[in-house]
């Protein structure tokens, strides 16, 4: 059943990461991504790995669940590593066969790249997606971008669109399931045939899905108007974002993180790329 797919994969909890302000977490995540690309040496990678494990531990999200977010990317990670092994050149030739040359640098680079992607996914998922509801995330984006309102960027409308999209994704997934079942019951075959046949077989699913999505959009627009929606002006909010103690803690953690990476790069530059 596809309907249990939840966008953002929020995993409820009460950790520091859960309680921190989504804006702080968003900024922290950006910092985390940027810093990952500054890491150059083995010591640096070891430090970031330990740091990420630390994040996973304080988030309270079970390791099994965290690793689940890596699974869809396993192929990309493997492919990146694979390409880097063959494409990177260096000084220490380890293996040669025909046009294939494998260098020690290639292997190291491949390992670092794979580790970087892995850490990126794990770090982002515990710092953001597993510990922040999609709604809070949207609010955070709206708040952080709100200075742009002054130059007439429709920040509120954008955030509203995000919210609605997130609200309707599970509904539309469920609907796709139902339509597929209905057409299968009429003998539709989505598996066999060539590419053209397969594309053709999708028409009886896509058309009803679009028709229904438009109908829903129409209904929703009327329902929103009836609930007195007229854009972002004059609106209040049930939940307002506040920075708190947890955000200070997050700030402290970030400082340690940045300092750690700089120190590793400067003082322990062994096996670096």
């Amino acid at each position, binding site marked *: 059943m596809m309907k249990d797919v939840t966008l953002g994969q929020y995993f409820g909890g009460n950790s520091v990461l859960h309680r921190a302000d989504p804006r702080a977490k968003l900024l922290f995540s950006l910092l985390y991504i940027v810093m990952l690309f500054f890491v150059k040496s083995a010591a640096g990678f070891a430090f970031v790995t330990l740091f990420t494990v630390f994040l996973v531990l304080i988030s309270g999200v079970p390791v099994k669940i965290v690793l689940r977010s890596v699974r869809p990317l396993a192929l990309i990670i493997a492919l990146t590593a694979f390409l880097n092994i063959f494409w990177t050149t260096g000084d220490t030739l380890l293996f040669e066969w025909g046009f294939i040359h494998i260098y020690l640098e290639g292997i190291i680079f491949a390992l670092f790249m794979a580790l970087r992607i892995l850490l990126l996914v794990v770090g982002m998922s515990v710092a953001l997606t597993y510990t922040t509801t999609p*709604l809070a995330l949207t609010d955070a984006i709206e708040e952080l971008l709100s200075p742009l309102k002054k130059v007439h960027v429709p920040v509120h409308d954008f955030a509203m669109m995000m*919210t609605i999209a*997130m609200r309707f994704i599970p509904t539309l997934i469920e609907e796709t399931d139902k339509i597929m079942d209905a057409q299968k019951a009429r003998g539709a075959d989505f598996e066999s045939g060539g590419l053209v046949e397969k594309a053709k077989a999708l028409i009886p699913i896509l058309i009803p899905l679009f028709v229904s999505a438009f109908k829903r959009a129409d209904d929703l627009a*009327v329902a929103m108007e009836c*609930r*007195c929606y007229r854009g972002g002006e004059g*609106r209040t*909010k049930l939940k307002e974002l506040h920075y708190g103690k947890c955000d200070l803690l997050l700030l402290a953690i970030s400082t340690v993180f940045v300092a750690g990476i700089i120190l590793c790069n400067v003082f322990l530059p062994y096996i670096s790329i």
Partner: protein
Amino acid sequence: MAEPFIIAENLSYTYTDEDGDSTDALKGVSFTVNAGEYVAVLGHNGSGKSTLAKLLNVILTPSGGKLTVGGHVIHSEMSEDEVFDVRRDVGMVFQNPDNQLVATIVEEDVAFGPENLGIPREEMRMRVDDALKTVGMYEHRANQPHRLSGGQKQRVAIAGVIAMMPKCIVFDESTAMLDPRGRAEVMQTIRRLNQDFGMTILHITHYMDEAVMADRILVVNDGEIYRDGTPKEVFADVEGLRRVGLDVPQGRELMHELSRSGIRFDDKPIDIEHCAELLLAKYNALK
């Protein structure tokens, strides 16, 4: 004396499609709904009953005649603020529970209307909690709407309207897509809103068993008001209702069938208790 909340005088509405063909959805209807009244609008699909609902909330504006809702005259040149005022007074619950919930969390959705009204946060918190308690969905406040049953979603939609504190709620076939349990939940909520909170209710439906619960029924057929009266008065005319594609309660139908075969009764009850009393009285008198 209750004062009128909705007054329709010779109200008409004409749809024009892309080819320029026009259809008269409402052909000059007149009726009044008093403040605090619970009125069911009964009619088959395409009878014009949903058009009526859309006019009350300025989704459509009248083609002719006059419509007054809560003191506001509805017309096509209303300013945005005037429309806003009407919508604050008249809440609307639609048919498809999935297509009216905006937010990904139940309480956020209930807050959507009050947020639009610019209600201060402390008061909003209270309104949201009260509304959720009124419909019995408070325990589900942190859930995601798509994980709820149809009846629960519809109750969340109702809470979203209640939190705006309107004077009147229009239910536009809000039970049509629900299973019996969901329908019962929603009907119970509607009755509570009317009885305990004195809210004016207009319930548009094609289920006669729901219409029976109202104080008064307006039967709409072919763009006209076909009957206007208490449930008992309206269901007295079994043949007439059948002609316009509607059902009557089975007890009433049975009594009607018997009277067609020459057995006379003094009254035309709609609930089975009264039907049974009359039938037993007749039987015992003969014995």
